[in-house]
């Protein structure tokens, strides 16, 4: 075993200790009634509740609703944002037109717009999907725009002199050159999409993880509240791990 492996071993070991210690402290604190059980249920009861929700299918139903909303919104935001970003980078009029809107929209707290989305698109899924789109589209526009501006002129000139038209220049030269940057932006935007979905469900109801979480809190079903928070944490971790793996596998060429 070389020293690097020893280091990662020790690291994994300490990480595991740290997490187990956290869970043990939680369990003990709850068992000796540091706080009433309604405020801090023991970990074992939360785990049992999690198992129960998994078996009776409520968790799967809520999770699939939330994930479908989040990823529909993310898909729309990525599609729209990439197209707008590319157009902005290549066309001065569009840049002039869209740039101030992006500058104003990017730092604004998008969750404040939720009453407008409810008013326009109802309280069901559509308003949430579009709110997610709205929340995620600005970083995608900015990321794609700056990536497309940074594409080497040589590539563009070569493609043009070899006879490619505007459309195939976009499709075969500029867009592929932007892929790594677009993916990095996508990785930033996915948590934003998840947060926006969960928050929108908490505020507006209409099913999903957030809605069930807030109902459980109102009826003081603390084990369910904790179980759902644990699931949301796990979702965030899994999604990020999947994306990191994808990035390592398919976008290796961008590193060098």
């Amino acid at each position, binding site marked *: 075993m070389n020293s690097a492996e020893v280091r990662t071993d020790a690291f994994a070991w300490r990480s595991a200790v740290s997490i187990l210690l956290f869970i043990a402290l939680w369990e003990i604190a709850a068992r000796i009634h540091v706080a009433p059980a309604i405020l801090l249920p023991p970990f074992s009861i939360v785990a049992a509740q999690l198992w129960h929700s998994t078996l009776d299918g409520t968790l799967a139903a809520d999770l699939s609703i939330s994930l479908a909303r989040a990823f529909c919104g993310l898909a729309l935001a990525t599609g729209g944002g990439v197209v707008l970003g590319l157009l902005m980078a290549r066309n001065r009029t569009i840049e002039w037109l869209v740039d*101030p809107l992006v500058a104003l929209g990017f730092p604004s707290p998008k969750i404040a717009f939720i009453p407008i989305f409810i008013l326009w698109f109802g309280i069901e899924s559509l308003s949430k999907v579009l709110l997610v789109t709205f929340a995620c589209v600005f970083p995608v526009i900015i990321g794609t725009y700056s990536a497309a501006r940074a594409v080497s002129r040589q590539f563009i000139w070569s493609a043009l002199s070899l006879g490619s038209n505007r459309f195939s220049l976009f499709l075969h030269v500029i867009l592929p050159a932007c892929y790594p940057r677009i993916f990095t932006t996508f990785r930033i935007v996915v948590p934003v999409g998840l947060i926006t979905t969960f928050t929108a469900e908490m505020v507006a109801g209409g099913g999903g993880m*957030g809605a069930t979480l807030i109902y459980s809190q109102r009826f003081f079903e603390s084990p369910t509240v904790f179980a759902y928070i644990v699931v949301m944490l796990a979702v965030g971790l899994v999604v990020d791990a999947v994306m990191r793996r994808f990035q390592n596998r398919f976008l290796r060429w961008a590193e060098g």
Partner: protein
Amino acid sequence: MTKADEFMSSARRGLVRVAPLILFGLIWHIICATGLVNKDFLPAPGAVAAALADLFKGGEITKNLTITLFRAAVGLVLGAACGIWIGVMMARSRHFREYVTPIVGGTYSLPKSALIPLFALWFGIGNVTAIAAVFLACLLPMIVNTYHGVVTTPKVLVWSAEALGTGERELWPRIFIRNALPDIFTGLRIALGFSFVLAISAEMIASTNGIGKLIFMYGENGNYDYMFAGIACMVIVAFLADRVLVILTKRLLVWHESAVTEPETRRR
């Protein structure tokens, strides 16, 4: 170029930049004036402006905005202070880093607004819940960015300082923290955005006041021009806060190359 010329050219540039927004407002006005959409669906810009003026006159905006900004600011300041401290500690001590990393990694991907119901359970409805949510949301980007900034300090800088007789204690404020400053400000900008989002979310979910509650209340009661006015006000405040932070960052980091190169890459 004289001072007056300079002012004129920058004013013209500003006008060119704002023109699309004015155009956007005009289109909005025309859509409303022609009755293309229901007035309840989309109040005219004039009506929204009147509602905004009314809200200012009645003091609703100033009162609730102060509450929201107070919650966001307290959470942001506490989160930034603790975040910088934890980030520095992680870079300083290997043991601390190895025990803390999994907890930071786990909470980093947790949607922080999911904790609002839990905080509401613990701390009740009001200031503490909102501040705790903002604090936690601001803490994570500050930790990650501070740590990154300290760890990427070039060895050359450390060696030079040591060769010139800087002691271990002096090294931290003079070399490591200073090298991390651009990253810390990047984290601060992210945290600033989070602070508004979390303060408003917390107010919508568990509060009786604040601008988030105000917006939501007008929406539920059907006072849509007032609802739009509240949202417009929040957008403007968030935009201004972000601008102020960017300008401040540029002022404070004049010595750093990031302050010089940024505008050139934008205007190519």
